[in-house]
């Protein structure tokens, strides 16, 4: 009897959790496959179609007005923003991994004066809310000629990714016994060689996890993309998607849902793929939320 009651409670809890997680997701999923006359229907579309996905990649949309800036703009296909977002994220991840793994190695292996200050500064940078940097970074990028440039945006993203990656990788490297490197050094490796040949391969799961987290951070950035990008050739996905809202009303729900699905599926998939490590990542120092 008691067992049955417990099962019932667990079932109810599972149902509530599934409903809570899936009610907004379901809506976008079904709308992205709906033909135009069915986009506001509650149930699954009767005539599911891939038209919306075909459209966002090929059909250029009509002119629309962005409300906040009162800026007239022709919204292009998703191709350019997708390419821009990928370009920025891949480059930012690459630079982050190179710089952060070396810095994290240093913080996990060496003892020297000032190390405490360095770790505190990196931790500080990690938890620091980026909106405070909106104004100075914009002014600085304008002076450097990197305003409205994907390179400038990529550089700004390093403010998110490097402290986070350094902090997390430090935790991973600390879990790898130092004796392995010492053995390699006895066999004639230099300190740096022992790091590259022994520690890095052993930390591979950690490196992949951190790279994916950094990728998602860069992919989802709205703060710097909003203030640093100004022409539609440079827009990333978050800015591109903003054009679907016109005067507080959704324009073209089908294509918006398809765009959101394309833009959200990649990070969600990467995240689920490393689900096992997410919790460890959180313990080592998590993603902002």
């Amino acid at each position, binding site marked *: 009897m008691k067992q049955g009651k417990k099962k019932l409670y*667990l079932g109810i809890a599972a149902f509530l*959790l*599934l409903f809570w*997680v899936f*009610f*907004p*997701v379901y*809506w*976008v999923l079904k*709308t992205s496959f709906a033909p135009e006359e069915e986009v*506001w229907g*509650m149930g699954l579309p009767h005539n599911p179609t891939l038209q919306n996905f075909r459209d966002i990649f090929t059909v250029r949309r009509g002119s629309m007005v962005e409300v*906040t*800036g009162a800026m007239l703009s022709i919204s292009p296909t998703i191709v350019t923003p997708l390419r821009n977002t990928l370009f920025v994220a891949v480059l930012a991840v690459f630079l982050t991994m190179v*710089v952060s793994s*070396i810095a994290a*190695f240093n*913080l996990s292996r060496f003892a020297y004066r000032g190390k405490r200050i360095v770790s*505190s*500064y*990196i*931790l*500080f940078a990690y*938890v*620091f*809310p980026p*909106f*405070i*940097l*909106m*104004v*100075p970074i*914009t*002014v*600085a990028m304008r002076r450097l000629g990197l305003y409205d440039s994907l390179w400038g945006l990529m550089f700004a993203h*390093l403010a998110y990714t*490097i*402290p986070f990656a*350094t902090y997390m990788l430090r935790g991973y490297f600390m879990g790898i016994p130092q004796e392995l490197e010492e053995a390699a050094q006895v066999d004639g490796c230099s300190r740096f060689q022992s790091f590259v040949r022994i520690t890095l391969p052993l930390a591979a799961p950690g490196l992949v996890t951190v790279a994916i987290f950094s990728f998602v951070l860069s*992919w*989802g950035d*709205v*703060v710097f993309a*909003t*203030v640093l990008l100004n022409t539609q050739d440079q827009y990333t996905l*978050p800015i591109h*998607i*903003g054009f679907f*809202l016109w005067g507080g009303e959704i324009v073209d729900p089908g294509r*918006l849902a398809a765009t*959101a699905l394309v*833009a959200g599926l990649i*990070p969600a998939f990467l*995240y*689920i793929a490393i*689900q096992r490590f997410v*919790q460890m990542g*959180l313990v080592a120092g*998590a993603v902002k*939320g």
Partner: protein
Amino acid sequence: MGKRTILFDLGKWTYVFPALLVLGLVLLVPLLFAFWMSFQHMPIGRPATFAGVKNFIRIFQCPLFYHSLERTILYAFPAVGVKAVIGLAVALFLNQKFWGRGVLRGIAIIPYALPLFIVCVLFWFVYDYRGIGNFLLRLVRLRPIRWLSYQYAMPSIILVNVWHGWPFFYLGFLAGLQSIPVELYESAEIDGASSFDQFVHITLPLLAPVFWIVCGLSLMWTMGDFVTPKMMTGGGPADVTLTIPIATYKIAFLLGLNYPLASAYAVAILPIFVVLIYLTVRRLE
């Protein structure tokens, strides 16, 4: 400390130097620059002149400053509270042993795995007058509402933030729960403690350290959340969701393109964040 040790120390510094250089350029230098700018007067097309504390006087005299502070508190505290409750409930639930737990654990992090701007798009559909929000209201015999109107905008965007952010609490609490030794519960059982007693006297106290870290981090990030208000309401209607990040953005880029004033604004609220960061980081280290 001889000469040799200092040189040796310098050698170790070279490893961390690239990271410090980049972080200095993208964090410390902009911060100092903002600090410098907040004391300047910068008319367009003319060189900057020293303005003393004029920008700060303007900020502190402006009702907008106090309004945005109030809005930020009304946004962040309820959001963090609800996220903590949901996170704890789900962590307790998914810490039980039952068939299908692994799948549910994977599903539970989906909201967190989606970038926040995607979550905002999901809720555009929920909050549309024809959308799922009003469908659910009708289902329980309530009248449909305008979700992002003056009256409802704040709770509505809090819900967006909560939906995205609660798995962070769940993950933290689950890790905390798993680190509590089972023996404690077993001996409590032998002593005749009810499961409620066990929860109050074992689970909650042992979860406290994790609780404060997670809450501190989340409070800071929720107060600094630019994405949700920007994508959902843009600070409106009638400034009802004008939190600090949106106010900074508006002063700097929309109202008068006044960088010094926006910098002064950011510098004026910086101490709040520094205190929060200090309190949280002290526990993290």
